[in-house]
């Protein structure tokens, strides 16, 4: 835990110009990822988790204004020249997406796409590239890799496509993998396989990963640490065991309480009242305050800062010391 962070975000902001005004998709995000660590980035739609991930690699379109600091291995990516950023994409930081079909090229075989990546990152010899492609396919658990290299993406199942995309991301041996909801489109049994695969690969290769998901169960089973996002901000960051044992933000607390937990069957759940906020009209205080059971007048007045509570743990909640146990004893 004491190692210097591999990736460090400070005050990251992403603002989209829309017809209804400026939309603060990411509103001052601080994150650290240490070498070899799996950080979960969890939140609902519109919480800014995917936009944060894309901002790291400069993948947002022209209408997005990105500011703040993105330091990867000490290098500021927001100010890096485009050519340098291209080198870092792939070799330094790889990325996988929710829907591999939109990320893979439909008219090239999987083999060509893996070898293309190898060539782009300086693997010169065609025979060596082919051998390495077979090795990568085997590594990600694709059966009969020699034969499957000649297949097109549409000939793969959803799970196999995700494996192929992971193989392409691994081709340039990145130190950090950004995974944007990589299992959301998959069935439960296939999701389980892919999460195990990602976990094994990060262990074996000493690679760090940011896993974006909306599913707290996926976080619990896969991640070392987790940052919970709400309305473009980090609500809370904590080691996974700590977060599930005792959340320190009222939103995390409410989210954990609202899920069914094998309590009394068919008993009413504890829903969070209201709806997620509109990002075009940001609130002056805590974005969760209008839905919060523990809110004080101060919560609506000014934005609570993200306060470090322990190494690797921080909370932006004024009620963090007043939250009761979320799980019935």
């Amino acid at each position, binding site marked *: 835990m004491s190692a210097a962070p591999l990736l460090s975000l400070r005050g990251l902001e992403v603002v989209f110009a829309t017809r209804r005004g400026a939309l603060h998709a990411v509103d001052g995000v601080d994150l650290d990822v240490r070498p070899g660590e799996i950080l979960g980035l969890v939140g609902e739609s519109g919480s800014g988790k995917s936009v944060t991930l894309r901002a790291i690699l400069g993948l947002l379109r022209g209408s997005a204004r990105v500011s703040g600091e993105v330091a990867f291995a000490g290098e500021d990516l927001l100010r890096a020249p485009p050519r340098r950023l291209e080198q870092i994409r792939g070799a330094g930081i790889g990325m996988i997406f929710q829907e591999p079909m939109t990320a893979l090229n439909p008219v090239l075989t999987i083999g060509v796409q893996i070898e293309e990546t190898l060539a782009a990152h300086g693997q010169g010899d065609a025979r060596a590239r082919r051998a390495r492609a077979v090795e990568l396919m085997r590594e990600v658990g694709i059966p009969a890799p020699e034969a499957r290299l000649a297949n097109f993406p549409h000939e793969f199942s959803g799970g196999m496509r995700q494996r192929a995309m992971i193989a392409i991301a691994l081709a340039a041996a990145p130190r950090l993998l950004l995974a944007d909801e990589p299992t959301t489109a998959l069935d439960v049994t296939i999701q*389980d*396989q892919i999460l*195990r695969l990602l976990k094994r690969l990060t262990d074996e290769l000493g690679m760090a990963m940011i896993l974006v998901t909306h599913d707290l169960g996926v976080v*619990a089973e896969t991640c070392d640490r987790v940052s919970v996002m709400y309305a473009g901000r980090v609500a809370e960051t904590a080691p996974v065991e700590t977060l599930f044992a005792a959340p320190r933000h009222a939103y995390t607390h409410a989210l954990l309480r609202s899920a069914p937990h094998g309590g009394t069957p068919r008993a*009413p*759940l504890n*829903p969070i009242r209201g709806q*997620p906020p509109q990002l075009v009209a940001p609130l002056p205080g805590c974005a969760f305050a209008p839905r919060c059971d523990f809110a004080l007048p101060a919560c609506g007045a000014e934005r609570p800062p993200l306060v470090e509570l322990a190494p690797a743990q921080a909370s932006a909640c004024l009620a963090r010391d007043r939250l009761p146990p979320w799980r019935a004893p």
Partner: protein
Amino acid sequence: MIPAAEAELSAAGLSKSFVGSRSLIDMALGRPASRLQALRDVSFEVARGETLGIVGESGCGKSTLARCLVGLHEVDRGEIRYRGQTLGERKGSARSRYDRAVQMVFQDPNGSLNPRMSVGECIGEALAVHKLAKGAQIARRVAELLALVNLPDSAALRRPHEFSGGQRQRIAIARALAVEPSCLIADEPLSALDVSVQAQIVNLFLELQARLGLTLVFITHDLRLVHHLSHRIAVMYLGRIVEIGPAQALFAAPRHPYTQGLIASAPRMEPKRVAGRDAVAGEIPSPLAPPPGCAFHPRCPRAADICRQVAPALETRDGSWPVACHFASAEGAV
């Protein structure tokens, strides 16, 4: 088991297949159209006021089953009965009575609400079609229905796009309830919603069921949810029910190897459980070419020769509940 007389809704031996499209090249080469067997010999009963959860992965036939139950698809074989009367025999007014009694709630409320109509018109249309109200009565009834799903009267004048996802699902539920059904078929009604909003809609289903005595067939891939909400659960795999039994007992000691793997795969809110072998190895086979014998055998850790040849019947063996496995047992339970 529930005696047939009490069953609100029952299905006996339902089979349904879809024929794939044939391209000109297929025709020129004399290739036959592909046939997808979506449901194979599916039977179950739902008692009045009961919640039957149906779980399974893609291609298991759960949505096709929902559509057959509300008459959106004709079945190839088998019988659907509502309070003892067969759906197929219903023509004219009998059919209309069935359509009123059994209503469906879809996954995506955006696809089931007309964006050009006000919410009041969306709900009022159902009342008018079934001649349940006219004139000023319609507005009164619409207000009642909106209150039932915890929305204000004023919602009637607005259009669906002005509401959030959770509110739109409430509107869709209000419309389904407009014709006073006794049975709701809900196909993944929560999966398009944000996590923080799902619990609100779960509570709404529980509340409506208690208040109106509704029978509920709840189709989902979310095991945590189905565990919590259902009295009984049916697990489907490639068009068949492989196990059906009481929700709590089935989750505590699943008998079918697929159910065991499915439950083990579902992420739980317990830190750091993932380790070791895959809960279920392999891929879901294509429903266009399902494996012979037991469709689960290529992924099953206990598969033997008989599994590759003979499809096991859905039978109760040891006094528990029906399971379609040659080696069904509580052993190896998770």
